[in-house]
């Protein structure tokens, strides 16, 4: 075994001390009939060969593409300081800080994470942490049911489709989840349908615990969050805002428009895409909801000498204390990713974070106008930050052909939202600060050629094409 220290002499010595002849004796309590069939696995590989195998597998993924794909996971410049600090064994080989006297590093870092994230979302209490944006959204929806003692949640179709699917799974235990449609056309197309929301909230026989909406929404559009909050609160429901943390450097934070809970994906804060995880579920709430929030909380206190120190607190919400009455079953989750987000925020700084958001907005505007110059136009009219949908005929095929030219043309929306006819021929494109003007020029040229090759004339919203 590659990492074990025991020599055969060591094993003999231990066996002799125990007073047995063979390690098999220690497994004698497994009944004969239940003993395992022989393990059949590929043979062990020495480190050199395994490294070569892993390098080959990694090389078969194409990460050389010029990418305009976002859709919930965003490429950003992560200062190398972030990962180099994470690689310190004192961080990544420690565990949950059950023994605070030898865990002040982790505990203080979590307190700092809670404080930084509280600033970003403008809410009081931040849990550290949740698995990802989808699971955090599901926990937020469950919180609204516990807090209001109601059993129905409304979620906007503007929330990431995978988040909606996740909340639906979490609600299998007996809660009701209904989707609020999006406005189909006009200036508000692609954002939450407020009239429909109002009607859904008005059913006295089926009161609503919480309303969930995302800003920017899955299509990149800015939502009327203050109005959604008002409608939710007027019906006695709580409002959950699903947010993207980098955008909060420039967009109004959930606390400013009355959100009771914020949930979101922390990946953009210095965390690599990694084909889906590990990521960082952000979950924050107003002080009034402190005892409903699931996940670890770290607080400031003092030690017996009066020194400032940090400790896990309000543990009576948690599964290892409350068992079946706990707020959630969550225990181990994403502490190292919360640390990554904190180091990222400290390294990039307040002005840097604003610049990251603003540069993404600038590059996206540049992308929009370059595409417009070849006749490719946005599907929706409303304001966006750094991601938007464009109409492209035969979008899936165009997307595939662009791979061969070295471009990842965002997301073919028909793959993610197959039930929405307005998105059947649309690409969702995003730009961030790592997108260059040269990338944009090359992509637009390649798209133009690809569309010409495939001959079908381009149809835009203005011409009555996909809306």
């Amino acid at each position, binding site marked *: 075994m590659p990492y074990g220290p025991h020599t055969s002499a060591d094993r003999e010595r*231990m066996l002799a001390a125990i007073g047995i002849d063979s390690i098999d004796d220690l497994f004698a309590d497994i009944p004969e009939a239940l003993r395992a069939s022989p393990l*059949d696995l590929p043979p062990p590989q020495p*480190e050199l060969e395994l490294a070569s195998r892993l390098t080959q597998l990694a090389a078969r993924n194409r990460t050389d593409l010029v*990418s305009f*794909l976002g859709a919930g996971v965003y490429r950003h410049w992560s200062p190398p300081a972030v990962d180099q600090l994470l690689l310190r064994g004192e961080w990544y080989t420690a565990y949950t800080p059950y023994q605070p006297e030898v865990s002040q590093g982790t505990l203080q870092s979590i307190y700092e994470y*809670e404080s930084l994230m509280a600033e970003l979302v403008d809410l009081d209490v931040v849990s550290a942490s949740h698995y990802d944006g989808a699971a955090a959204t599901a926990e937020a929806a469950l919180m609204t049911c516990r807090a209001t003692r109601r059993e129905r949640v409304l979620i906007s179709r503007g929330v990431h489709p995978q988040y909606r699917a996740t909340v639906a799974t979490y609600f299998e*235990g007996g809660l009701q989840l209904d989707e609020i449609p999006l406005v189909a056309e006009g200036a508000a197309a692609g954002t939450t349908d407020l009239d429909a929301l109002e009607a859904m909230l008005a059913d006295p026989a089926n009161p609503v615990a919480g309303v969930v909406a995302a800003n920017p929404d899955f299509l990149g559009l800015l939502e009327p969050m203050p109005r959604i909050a008002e409608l939710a609160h007027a019906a006695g429901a709580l409002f959950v805002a699903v947010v993207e943390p980098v955008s909060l450097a420039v967009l109004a934070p959930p606390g400013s428009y009355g959100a009771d809970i914020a949930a979101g994906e922390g990946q953009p804060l210095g965390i690599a*895409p990694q084909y889906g995880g590990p990521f960082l579920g952000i979950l924050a709430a107003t002080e009034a909801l402190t005892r409903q929030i699931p996940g670890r909380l770290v607080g400031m206190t003092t030690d017996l000498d009066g020194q400032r120190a940090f400790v896990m*607190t309000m543990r009576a919400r948690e599964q290892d204390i409350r068992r079946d009455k706990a707020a959630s079953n969550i225990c181990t989750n994403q502490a*190292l990713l919360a640390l990554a987000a904190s180091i990222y925020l400290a390294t990039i700084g307040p002005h840097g974070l604003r610049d990251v958001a603003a540069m993404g907005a600038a590059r996206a505007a540049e992308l929009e106008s370059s595409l417009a110059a070849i006749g490719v136009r946005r599907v929706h009219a409303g304001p966006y930050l750094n991601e938007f949908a464009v109409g492209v005929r035969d979008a899936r095929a165009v997307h595939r052909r662009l791979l061969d030219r070295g471009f990842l043309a965002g997301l073919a929306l028909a793959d993610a939202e197959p039930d929405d006819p307005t998105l059947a021929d649309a690409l969702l494109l995003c730009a961030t600060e790592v997108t260059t003007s040269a990338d944009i020029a090359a992509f637009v040229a390649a798209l133009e050629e690809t569309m010409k090759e495939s001959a079908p004339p381009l149809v835009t919203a203005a011409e009555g094409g996909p809306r």
Partner: protein
Amino acid sequence: MSVTGPRLQPTIFELGRDGRGGGKIPHPPADALDRLPADARRSRPPAIPAMNEPDVVRHYVNLSQLNFAVDTGFYPLGSCTMKFNPKLNEWAARLSGFADLHPMAPDEVAQGTLELLWELEEALAEISGMQAVTLQPAAGAQGELTGILMIRAYHSERGDTGRTEVLVPDSSHGTNPATASMAGYTTITIPSASDGGVDVDAFTAALGPRTAAVMITNPSTVGLFESRIGELLEAVHAAGALAYMDGANLNAIMGRFKPGEAGFDVMHFNVHKTFSTPHGGGGPGAGPVGVGDHLLPYLPTPRVLRADDGGYRLERPDERPRSIGRMRSFVGNTGVLVRAYAYIRAHGAAGLREVSDDAVLAANYLKHRLADAYDIPFDRPCKHEFVASAATIKRETGVRTLDIAKRLIDFGFHPPTIYFPLIVEEGMLIEPTETESVETLDAFADTLIAIAGEAASDPELVRSAPHTAPVKRLDEATAARHPNLRWRPMAGAETPCPD
């Protein structure tokens, strides 16, 4: 004893000074945000401290040194399998092909990762004796919820809707009953037998038409193999219920016991325990779930599929309508799974069996070494961990398990898990793992024996420990009664708006 070593640190909020930092990305055009509606904009910037990189680096290096970790010393935290985390695996997870791959990239550009995930599923199915595995759950607790929701779907599809209860032993991890509640079930807690194991007779008596599932940890949370598990599984199935195995203790039984072969219907793996992915100060983990044939239709979506041409693809949404759906976004904690894959490939079948053999040998050796100084409540061969108790010491000296745990810190050891499971008075759950040398095991045993001596000769020394840690014991009562959960910037100290 004097306090030496790393010092407590100011918070980053006390280190920030307006005007510091910058130089990371190009400046955006001044009008970049002008196209956004004014009411959508943030009016007050977040009060993130402005720091320069040298200060950030020093802060986090100094903070890290306040931590105890596997890389700094022996960490026998029972139930958590704090084994060595191979450095090769960290290197592999950071290869650009793995790290920079977008989760919504088309299958054709993700073939390397998809092949790795497929092979990992196959390996986990082989290790567990299960028919198929999903890698999607983000952690063991999410794996439990995945498993129980699949059991729910199974009963419900059969029209067997009267099953509302999940049976768990009182020695179980807290996640088991919490999971049952999340899935809409009522938890029935069954007291343990006097030998610390599942009381098979009590379980059998509680089984009935209302039982949806039982959740069993095997080896149990006191480190003992459930020898009557076959009998119990038969009774569970005879009652029409299904059996969930909490795989937290898989490190004890690889190559010796395959839960799927024995008759468990579903189980989760904690790859951060058994397969050495780092614990990260409390995550990230990953909680793959294995199932038998009858639960296969309900596995979460998307699965990784192998096509006839040898290529790999992700299942499309709605391709398998009987699935319970999604547990989270994307395919799973892939970065963690790359590490687990590397670990399994480095070991092979013989290596994994040796891992379990050595983990069990080390635990039995340590138990033997401590048997004269501490109570050993369950005196039979243990698996990868065992419970020792300070009940006698407490009775004779007033020194508690908590005090002994804190005193271990002074000698450079991380304390074991204490007061879990709750069924043992003054218990400490000790799990040495297979990557600790016999010299380390001896040093730890010698220290615990010496502390038992101190408890008799100088109890106050033990009761006031630790003496050499950066902080003394904490005021946890005040922390809970007057929670301070975030830094409050002082008035006037806000970061000015960069506009």
